[in-house]
């Protein structure tokens, strides 16, 4: 009887190659570094922030950056550095929940549409089209205004406008997967539609959706910041970068630090996600994977 061929462990080889490609692209590395810093700041925020981000102290209001207050203080005497640091937690929380919620909604709708085809597909795709027809920020604003501005509703609003991409993506994968012999095999073995959809088709759709999620994380922060800036998002005194930029609008000329520092952080984190996302997408492109 035939001896087993040497186990080649393609997963490990693949991982090694991925690490190699990652190291080769300077921009991707920069992006990764930025994101890692962001994650560390968010994780250790209470330890890094020297002051309570919410505590007001009107006697030290509107102070310019100094060694006691690295980013200065705002009109309520709050330490901006601490607020920016704490704001990273808010940002991370938003990214995480929006990704999970919109990813889940998107995959379920996409897989159902792709797997069943026909009328189910038509209906679900037209619903998706409806959501896609509106510019996402406008739609998010509408939802936020409708539901009322706070952190939870910001998350819901952004999730509602984000799921459509993942639905389209998973539908495409599902259509590819459903005609494969390994799906026919489980049908022949007696597998029902639900079993096949969730245990066999869905797992194959997760990778491309995960990649998209990473690519979209920068956009999520921007949307949250925009909503915050417009007053439709997280409400004071919770530190959120967009809201902080908005807070400093009236003081932009003389006390520039109130808006600028949160703005810089938004820019860097979005840049980090974009660079990382581009890198991931390039790494996964089979033609570039030599």
């Amino acid at each position, binding site marked *: *009887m*035939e001896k*087993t*061929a040497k*186990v*080649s*462990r*393609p*997963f490990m080889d693949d991982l090694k190659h991925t690490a190699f490609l990652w190291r080769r692209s300077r921009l991707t590395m920069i992006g990764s570094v930025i994101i890692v810093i962001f994650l560390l700041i968010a994780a250790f925020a209470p330890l890094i922030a020297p002051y309570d981000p919410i505590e007001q102290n009107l006697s030290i209001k509107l102070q310019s950056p100094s060694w006691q207050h690295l980013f200065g203080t705002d009109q309520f005497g709050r330490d901006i550095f601490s607020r920016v640091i704490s704001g990273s937690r808010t940002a991370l929380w938003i990214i995480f929940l929006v990704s999970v919620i919109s990813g889940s909604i998107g995959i379920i709708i996409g897989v159902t549409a792709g797997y069943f085809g026909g009328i189910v597909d038509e209906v679900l795709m037209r619903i998706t089209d409806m959501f896609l027809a509106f510019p996402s920020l406008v739609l998010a604003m509408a939802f936020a205004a409708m539901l009322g501005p706070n952190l939870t509703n910001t998350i819901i609003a952004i999730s509602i406008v984000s799921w459509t991409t993942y639905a389209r993506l998973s539908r495409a994968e599902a259509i590819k997967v459903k005609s*494969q*012999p*390994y799906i*026919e*095999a*489980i*049908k*022949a*073995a*007696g*597998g029902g539609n639900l*079993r096949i959809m969730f245990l*066999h088709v869905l*797992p*194959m759709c997760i990778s491309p959706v995960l990649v998209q999620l990473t690519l979209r994380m920068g956009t999520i922060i921007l949307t949250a910041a925009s909503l915050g800036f417009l007053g439709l998002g997280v409400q004071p005194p919770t530190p959120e970068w967009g809201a902080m930029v908005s807070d400093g609008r009236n003081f932009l000329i003389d006390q520039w630090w109130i808006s600028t520092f949160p703005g810089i952080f938004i820019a860097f984190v979005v840049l980090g996600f974009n660079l990382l996302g581009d890198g991931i997408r390039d790494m996964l492109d089979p033609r570039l994977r030599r």
Partner: protein
Amino acid sequence: MPDTLIKIENLKTYFPVKKSIFSKKLFVRAVDDVTMEIPRGSTFAVVGESGSGKTTLARSVLRLIEPTSGKIFFDGSEILKLKGKDLLDVRRKMQIVFQDPYNSLHPRKLIKNIIGEGMKIHFKITESEIKDKISAVLKEVGLRDEHMFRYPHEFSGGQRQRIAFARAIVLKPKFIVLDEPTSALDVSVQAMVLKMLKDIRSQEGLTYMFITHNLSLVDYIADRVAVMYVGEVVEMGEKNTVFNHPSHPYTDLLMASNPIPDPKFQREKRLLKGEIPSSINPPSGCRFHNRCPHADQKCASQAPELSEHKPGHFVRCHYPL
């Protein structure tokens, strides 16, 4: 006829072709009125080229594609109207092995789950009992216990086909459709897999429907053979009879086109001219008439019926050879 396990009666599987809403509805007549009987415990080969309908037939028998009309009897009961638990029960008894070893096993699942899932669907059975059965079936196909903890990509083409076969037999079916199971394998690997198929068939008392385009394989493994052309069965009978005395001109030319791996074997070159016609708009009368060296007016206008030319030997031709 000996004990029949599968009886297919006037089976038709048509696929609609989407054209504009203004034009007439067209159909791909993939399986166009096929009737055949498969004796229990035998290997029944279905041979044909592209467009013959053999692949669609294989899937229609298992209801992986729902036939358009006709009847299929499995062990006496008609299966096309079955639903729910009855259908599930029949599914367990009819399994399939596919042509493509690289896409017939779920890439993200362990072998143990690929083979074991069927059992979870059909039996109330504990994890350890499942493991035992998987162990036994892996041994039967020439693999080892530890293989159940691996992923498909860790195996060669030949090994994957054996795993696919293990998946099929673990449910203790009565009937297995083998759809070109060795076409994608190297010659020496093919030999191994074919031997395994033959051995296990006798050991377990299985019945096979073996789909292929390769006549040499038919000779090696089959008891009876049906030759298909553009959706119809044109000849059917005992393998030796069909091979030694082909009665349909298509069968004859098919055999003449089959290259023989023996340079000593000289024969006059007889070629089948022309292209295989479309299944959407097959030729009038006998579908083979425009390529047949013996065709005449009758063949062009009147479609011949499949008739029992000699006992157990069926031909669809006005002038059988």
